[in-house]
């Protein structure tokens, strides 16, 4: 089940008026509980091992497989992500929250920004590039730590659009 499908299922349950739902099929098992203050909490999502469609030529690679320098951060499986827009990295380099260690960050969680606002710097080959947001809205989450490497299309910020 894809994260988006899980999201849709949770939304459906949330609007259904039910307090608790358990679903079990051959492929997966999911338990969703609705708390009194109506914040949905999805627990116990157990997905099976990916069905082995892939044969001998796609083995499970050695344990040091996971990329270390540029791990794409996992998007939160939270209910709130459905209407948010992700600002993704347009280039490869090192991500910085501010233009120098002494100056304040370009943006913080909760800030309201306009399209065109510089939100971060990505440095590559000794060149510092200011990355501008293409959308207006409120910064909901910052997905990358200061001074870490980022790759093309890597999610950087979650923005709640106006």
């Amino acid at each position, binding site marked *: 089940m894809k994260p988006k499908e899980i999201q849709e299922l949770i939304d459906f349950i949330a609007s259904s008026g039910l307090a608790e739902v358990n679903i079990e099929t051959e492929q997966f098992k999911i338990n969703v509980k609705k708390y009194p203050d109506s914040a949905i909490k999805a627990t116990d999502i157990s997905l099976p091992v990916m069905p082995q469609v892939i044969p001998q*030529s796609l083995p499970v*690679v050695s344990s040091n*497989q996971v*990329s*270390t320098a540029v791990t794409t951060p996992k998007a939160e499986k939270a209910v709130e992500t459905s209407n948010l827009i992700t600002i993704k990295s347009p*280039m490869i380099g090192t991500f910085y929250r501010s233009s120098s260690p002494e100056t304040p960050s370009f943006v913080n969680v909760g800030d309201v920004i306009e399209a065109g606002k510089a939100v971060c710097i990505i440095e590559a080959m000794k060149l510092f590039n200011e990355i501008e947001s293409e959308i207006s809205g409120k910064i909901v989450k910052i997905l990358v730590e200061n001074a870490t490497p980022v790759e*093309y299309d890597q999610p950087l910020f979650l923005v709640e659009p106006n």
Partner: protein
Amino acid sequence: MFKKILIANRGEIALRVIRACKELGIKTVAVYSVADKESLHVRFADEAVCIGPAPSSQSYLSIPNIIAAAEITNADAIHPGYGFLSENAKFSKVCEDYGIKFIGASADMIDSMGDKASAKDTMKKAGVPCIPGSDGLLKTIDEGIKLSNKIKYPVILKATAGGGGRGMRIIRNDQEFEKAWNDAKQEAGAAFGNDGLYLEKFIEEPRHIEVQLLGDKFGTVVHLSERDCSIQRRHQKLVEETPSPIITERLRNKMGEAAIKGAKSIKYEGAGTIEFLVDKNGDFYFMEMNTRIQVEHTITEEATGVDLVKMQIRVAAGEKLEKKNYFPLRHSIECRINAEDAKNGFRPSPGKITNFHMPSGFGVRVDSHCYTGYTIPPNYDSMIAKLIVNAPTRDEACDRMKRALQEFVIDGIKTTIPFHIKLMDDPKFRSGKFTTAFLESFDFSSIK
């Protein structure tokens, strides 16, 4: 020795380089475009960096993106594979400027061999036989006729700014010269904005035979014998083999020594290949030099036992080459399997491979990045696998290739496997007596 190599390529060659690195204990970084997220080379590497959207110009051909990826992963060397930036002098220079070792030729070597006219000049000075012809551009028809009689008809007029077969005219006698000259000049002027022409002896129905070379930084250059790549369609190689069925031991030594002379004259370092045209008299002429690893390096590996990609890495890391040449100990053939419909004009057939099963067994090797469920992206070339066999004799190699082709299952798309099976049965192919014109008279319609 390098600690970490970034592979600036994709598909089967990226896998090839990653495998060599793993065996040498070197860490690997794969780069990939958004379209190659599910690619095998991404999974096999220790680290992977997404470097751009699907179009090559914004990813695999983007020098800043690749250098940035090398920076953030602290790669100390870049292997460019073949195609893409492997013979891009600017990229080689940028790597040098950033202190990253480019596992390939220096910018100077790439430049000197990249320009066809100057490459020929360089080789001529080194004493490598070149196709006789004019010294630079022809000024007049009379000059042309005089020269043609000297080097003997047939000759070919070529546009200096040309390509794709345009601005070219074959001339067989004095009477045809004036008209050919006027036609070629007009075509060249219209197509390239430059109507300059030069003259060369026209080698009829040649064989395309290339010599593999390795050079170290201490001035040693060795050869690893020839590859016969005469089975071509529209100048694209489909099948390669070594040893060449028509090359004698004597000719092998002669061509090998000529190639070494040429490479030494530019102080060549790394793996490289010099391509020759060989006519029916066994005379060979320099055509061009490729300053990179080639697709068909595999058959040289199978026949000589030398791991060419590892040698590239070793030589780039400053190791010394043993002063010896290598000769084929076995016969090896490679068939390039493309996602194309050979029965219908080799129409490209991209899509999802629903079932992929590689052949194996004694003397069979498959270099491929495909697997069941893999979707071939439409943005890149159509080669899906290289099937390579080796055997004690040419006949056995052909039989083994046919056996392996029949075992190869690729469902969901059309491939050139049926063409290769038919080729292995073709009497002319089996005889070994063919030229680069062979496929022009091949009956493609009867492919199953």
